[in-house]
């Protein structure tokens, strides 16, 4: 608990990621020394309780980070702890030292986790629930029967674990110190990964699985990586517990234990590193307090899960930290929200697009494309082509198939039949959505679909980091370049004042600009914009117009779908009108404007006749 408090303080007088990491290391190693026989008598009962809170924290933090960053709940983490614990119990006797056990156990846990994650991630995050349940039950049966390794129901004693570097036997007196050392390691690794680029990817996928694919992220693979990391760290909790307790009880690795660990992560705060310290102490402490009262601990765990989720869903520690921060901000006056618009001229945007995007050289060709949903033909033999650097407007009444066509182009819907579907040399059909970006195709979304848990700057950074996925350059160069790209877009789209805001804090118009920024950051050569004008007020629409003109000036290939027909006609080089899944008309904006069939589709027959009549009268009048 003291560490939770310390981390709150830390953020006050230190800023920046590296300072935070230094603090984690100093604090962790300081505690490690304090909890060793060098400083105190480690044979006291309370030191063992402390150590068990620490090794419980290790597995709680591995779970809470998984749930927080990827939205995956695991019912099998007690089984991953078992991997580390039983490996330690069996290998220590053969003389394998602490320094080898750590990478070995973490690696084994991670490999098991990766394969489980890969199979579950293909389906849905809910499927992780069933799969981990299966793992947990299977693990219990194996532990119960595999006597040579696990000692069966009786459990097994852990031989002394030695440290090679320190030339010490850790098992007798150094349990708490070893647990604290491992915990420090785990927090450091998690801080690096979760607060870094990888964590941004995971949070993006968690909040918008679909939009994340449009910037080239592969959800199931990232889910598997997150699960592997979590399982590997959980196995380290097993090493720590084996050293501390010196005896492995199979009940510690049961499904019920996994459930209680979930209680720990929920109560501490899902995704919160500081919260996991509280969660670990909670899970280890409640049974100590309720010693001898069989049902009280389970009751407390269950009730706390429900109450926290209903009333303090972010968890106790984040709740307290938020209150503190709010209090401080109020005292310092806070930062007021600026006005809700950005202004950039078409020329500035054009410069931005020219600087960032590759020159468009690939033509988009769609030939005889059809999409069927059951008996419904959403798209029926549509053909169109688009020269590099030109703007195509796609219009049509509701249900015409516009969005379906866009979803086919960006890979979310597979065509049922087609002649060709190409961007330059790339065949698009059959390729998953996350590969479109590599082919130079980007898109925006009607509802912006921004990543809830990333700030504007983080979103742009994430986009930028995907933009050069194929180029080979050093990590430091990449880092610099990503930041430069993000900064360039922030400035170019006049988003600087929103750089550190989360999507929920932004007006809808700004969200849509950020969506465009995210797409620009990935540096595609052809882009599709899904109803960019919908939901914008007049000021916001004016700004969007400037952005579109800028992209056109810069020679970006653009497909724009919108109900705002006038807007589309005024910017497009060519227009395709869809109706009931078929191409109703195609041509220049001027041709489309006067096409009677188009007018009929939009306004109905009678209105069109009336309009034609009006036109005839007007002509007659002119010549009269």
């Amino acid at each position, binding site marked *: 608990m003291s560490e939770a408090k310390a981390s709150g303080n830390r953020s006050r007088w230190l800023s920046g990621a590296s300072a935070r990491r230094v603090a984690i290391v100093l604090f962790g190693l300081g505690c490690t020394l304090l909890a060793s026989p060098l400083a105190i008598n480690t044979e006291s009962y309370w030191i063992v309780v402390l150590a068990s809170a620490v090794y419980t924290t290790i597995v709680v933090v591995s779970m809470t980070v998984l749930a927080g960053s990827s939205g995956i709940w695991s019912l099998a983490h007690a089984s991953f702890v078992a991997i580390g614990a039983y490996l330690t119990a069996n290998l220590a006797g053969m003389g394998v030292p602490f320094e080898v056990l750590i990478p070995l156990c973490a690696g084994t846990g991670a490999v098991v986790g990766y394969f489980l994650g890969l199979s579950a991630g293909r389906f849905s995050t809910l499927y992780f629930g069933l799969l981990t349940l*299966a793992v947990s039950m299977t693990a219990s049966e194996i532990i119960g029967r595999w006597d040579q390794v696990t000692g069966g129901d009786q459990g097994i004693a852990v031989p002394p674990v030695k440290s090679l570097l320190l030339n010490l036997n850790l098992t007798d007196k150094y349990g708490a110190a070893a647990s604290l050392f491992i915990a420090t390691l785990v927090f450091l690794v998690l801080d690096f990964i979760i607060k870094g680029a990888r964590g941004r990817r995971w949070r993006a996928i968690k909040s918008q699985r679909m939009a994340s694919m449009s910037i080239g992220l592969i959800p199931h693979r990232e889910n598997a990586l997150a699960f592997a990391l979590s399982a590997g760290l959980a196995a380290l909790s097993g090493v720590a517990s084996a050293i501390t307790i010196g005896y492995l009880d199979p009940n510690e690795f049961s499904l019920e234990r996994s459930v209680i660990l979930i209680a720990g992560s929920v109560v501490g705060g899902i995704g919160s590193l500081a919260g996991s310290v509280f969660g670990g102490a909670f899970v280890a402490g409640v049974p100590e307090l309720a010693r001898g009262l069989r049902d009280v601990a389970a009751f407390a765990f269950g009730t706390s899960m429900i109450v926290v989720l209903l009333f303090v869903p972010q968890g106790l520690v984040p709740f307290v930290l938020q209150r503190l921060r709010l209090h401080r901000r109020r005292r310092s006056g806070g930062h007021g929200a600026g006005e809700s618009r950005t202004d950039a001229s078409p020329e500035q945007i054009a410069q931005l697009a020219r600087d960032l995007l590759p020159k468009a050289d690939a033509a988009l060709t769609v030939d005889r494309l059809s999409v069927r949903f059951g008996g419904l033909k959403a798209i029926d033999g549509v053909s169109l082509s688009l020269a590099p650097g030109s703007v195509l407007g796609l219009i049509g009444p509701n249900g015409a198939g516009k969005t379906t066509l866009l979803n086919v182009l960006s890979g979310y819907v597979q065509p049922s039949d087609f002649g060709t579907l190409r961007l330059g040399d790339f065949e698009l059909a059959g390729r998953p959505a996350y590969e479109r970006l590599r082919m130079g195709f980007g898109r925006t979304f009607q509802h912006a679909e921004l990543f*809830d848990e990333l700030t504007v700057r983080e979103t742009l950074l994430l986009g930028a980091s995907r933009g050069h996925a194929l180029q080979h350059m050093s990590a430091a160069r990449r880092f610099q370049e990503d930041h430069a790209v993000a900064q360039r877009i922030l400035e170019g789209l006049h988003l600087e004042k929103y750089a550190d805001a989360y999507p929920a804090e932004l007006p809808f118009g700004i969200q849509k600009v950020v969506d465009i920024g995210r797409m620009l950051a990935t540096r595609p050569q052809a882009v599709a914009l899904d109803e960019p004008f919908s939901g914008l007020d007049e000021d916001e629409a004016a700004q969007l117009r400037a952005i579109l003109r800028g992209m056109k000036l810069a020679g970006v290939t653009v497909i724009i779908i919108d109900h705002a027909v006038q807007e589309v006609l005024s910017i497009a080089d060519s227009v395709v009108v869809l109706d009931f899944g078929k191409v109703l008309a195609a041509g220049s904006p001027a041709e489309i404007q006067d096409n009677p069939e188009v007018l009929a589709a939009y306004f109905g027959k009678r209105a069109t006749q009336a309009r034609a009549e009006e036109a005839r009268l007007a002509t007659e009048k002119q010549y009269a």
Partner: protein
Amino acid sequence: MHFLVPLLISGIVTGAAYGLVALGKTIIFKTTDTVNFAIADIATLAAFVSITAMHAGLPVWGGLLLSIAVAGTLGIVTERLLLRRIARNRYRIFVALVIMIGLALVIRAGIGATWGHDPVKFPALVPGSVRLAGIAIPLNKIVATVMALIAMGVVAWFFTHTSFGVAMRASAEDPFAARLVGINANRVAAIAWFIGCGLAAISIFFLAADSALTPVFALVPLFRALAGVFLGGLTSMPGAVLGGFAIGMLDNLAAGYVSASFRDTIVFSVIVLVLFIRPEGLLGKTRAERV
């Protein structure tokens, strides 16, 4: 062969029990997007209430009705008090799952504190047994299977032939549109939870008579039914019943032919394998997750 027939018979008997719980879970999942991890614990609590009533003189058939009523009411209360509050949560499906896991813990602890941890003998609705294919089968199990099939039939009839049942299915497909045409979403949720938990109560009531009631009695039927739900396709009611029967069969065959101490391993390995090949389950539609 003489070994197989009794295994198949007991597969059908346990399959019917798992199928009922699976059906209850699917009804609840379809209508309120909640994976009900506490359904079997709610039913177990109801069974403890009825055994107390039966000890006080209630006949066994009365105990069955009481059990259904108690479980159904607890279901309604659960939905009303614990789930309606989180309706707007973005990650609702997961929050609901974790809340249900917590509720299961609370119920188990509550039962332990009230009725103790010693097994409680549970009466059969119909005592005695018959010989079938060379083995003695308790009549109670046959009654249980028949009742399960009847209950499944009634549920199928309700959802296809009554206007409210059809409205409930419509509401599950598209809650927004259903509200527009005047279907009361709260009432749909309440009825779904009553039916779902009531079905589980029937299942647990008969399963308890096979062995004895304990606070952790719910665990095995819960996990098997959950596996059945996934196997059947998560949102398909016939799929859930089929999945439940499949698990019951698998369970008995695994215990009979391979090893009784690895039945969970075998059952779950087969399911994971099946879902690997056919992710949408036996009768499920491929569907975007509603999260």
